[in-house]
């Protein structure tokens, strides 16, 4: 079954088109910071607690805060119900996501403490590690964790011979390559880079460039989401005063 017909993908998108994205910040009461992201049918919730005391104390780093990250998928998030126990994939993703966010955070500000980050996938349609990073960055900024920049993330890949942006699940499963990237646009630093599949050098370079462009677009949506909360209050309050 062809995945791209007349330069239109299974969901009607053009090869370089992102799925519709919606981001909200500060939606959970207990967490110090939180964010909800919808990218197409993928739905992700992220929350941050900290910096706070780390128990047991012997795990603490005397020079910087620990960033502890847990990527997890709800049992009802996938086509077939999955066990809530963490899979090997969950463990690997938790680690690469942590490594994607660490360069952005001023961990040295809070030695011996921990910053706990939880990413829950409520519905999965591909691109969950990237959407998870997008949500996590917004949650970290929402929590007031000091950061060098927001981290954005987006995957590119090869499907039916075309280099495409933001693969949905079926494209990831049936396509030739998948390249998730996390990027800090103001600093121009790549903090997550993975690939599986087959790409020539030229295809790899094109896909990477495309992924970075995707990151830059999503970055704007992250910024919008953070500002929107405060601007909404401004408008509400301005109305009262007027």
């Amino acid at each position: 079954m062809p995945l791209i017909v007349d330069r239109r993908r299974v969901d009607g998108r053009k090869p370089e088109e992102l799925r519709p994205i919606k981001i909200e910040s500060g939606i959970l009461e207990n967490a110090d910071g939180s964010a909800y992201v919808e990218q197409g049918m993928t739905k992700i919730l992220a929350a941050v607690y900290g910096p706070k005391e780390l128990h047991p104390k012997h795990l603490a780093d005397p020079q910087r805060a620990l960033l502890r990250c847990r990527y997890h998928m709800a049992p009802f998030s996938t086509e077939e119900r999955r066990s809530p126990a963490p899979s090997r994939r969950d463990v690997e993703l938790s680690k690469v996501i942590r490594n994607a966010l660490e360069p952005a955070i001023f961990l040295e500000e809070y030695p011996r403490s921990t910053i706990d980050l939880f990413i829950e996938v409520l519905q999965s349609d591909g691109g969950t590690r990237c959407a998870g990073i997008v949500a996590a960055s917004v949650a970290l900024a929402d929590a007031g964790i000091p950061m060098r920049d927001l981290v954005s993330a987006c995957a590119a890949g090869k499907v039916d011979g075309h280099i495409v942006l933001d693969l949905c699940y079926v494209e990831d499963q049936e396509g030739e390559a998948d390249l998730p990237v996390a990027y800090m646009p103001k600093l121009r630093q790549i903090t997550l880079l993975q690939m599986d599949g087959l790409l020539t050098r030229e295809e790899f370079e094109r896909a990477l460039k495309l992924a970075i462009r995707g990151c830059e677009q999503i970055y704007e949506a992250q910024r919008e989401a953070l500002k929107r909360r405060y601007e909404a209050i401004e408008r509400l309050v301005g109305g009262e005063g007027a």
Partner: protein
Amino acid sequence: MFEQRELVLPGDVLARGDFKAGDNTYKVGDEIRASRVGLVEYGEDEVSVIALNSCYDPKVGDVVVGKVVDVEINGWNVDIGGPLEAFLNVKDVIGGQPSPDIPLTRIYDVGDVVVAKIIGFHKTMMRPLLTTQGPGLGKVGRGLMVRITPTKIPRVIGRKGSMISMLLKETGCKMILGQNGYIIAIGSRKGEEMVAAALEKIERECHVPGLTDRVHEFIRSLKEGG
């Protein structure tokens, strides 16, 4: 680059050149960038950001409101809302060693709320050190405790104390402000609830100018509402 008090986000370039990097900013080359979401403040030679959310950064000399969470051999662990729990040594409460047959819980117990001053802290140290010896310090017997973002405490005080004196007058409450964002209101039940509602409003709207008047109006409407 930005207007005074404009909302900025981590990574935003606030200034270039000979500025000092103030609170919630960092310097990269000759650029000063924001490190937290907040309102940018351009000073004479310094650029800083008033963070809209951040955890408490303990400083020596700060008066804080904390909750006793554990009792140890020689003192108490106190939660002051910062990244690390603080420690209160018994000698910084009673000025010496207690007699061995008096359990420490008789002095302060888990769940007690105390007003304390930070007498020692350095990033590389294990935890902030507190004392409750001094005027206005010690255990709080009753009152309503509210938590706001520590960076917003100056807004609760207001320019030349305008906000806090209005709150004290209109609600008839006594208020204890901790630099760590914990505030205690002590007064009538209604008065305490009005303070809590006002603080919630300050927390939510502190980035919109005209705050003191709005809060004043709000409290008046609460009083009329009965």
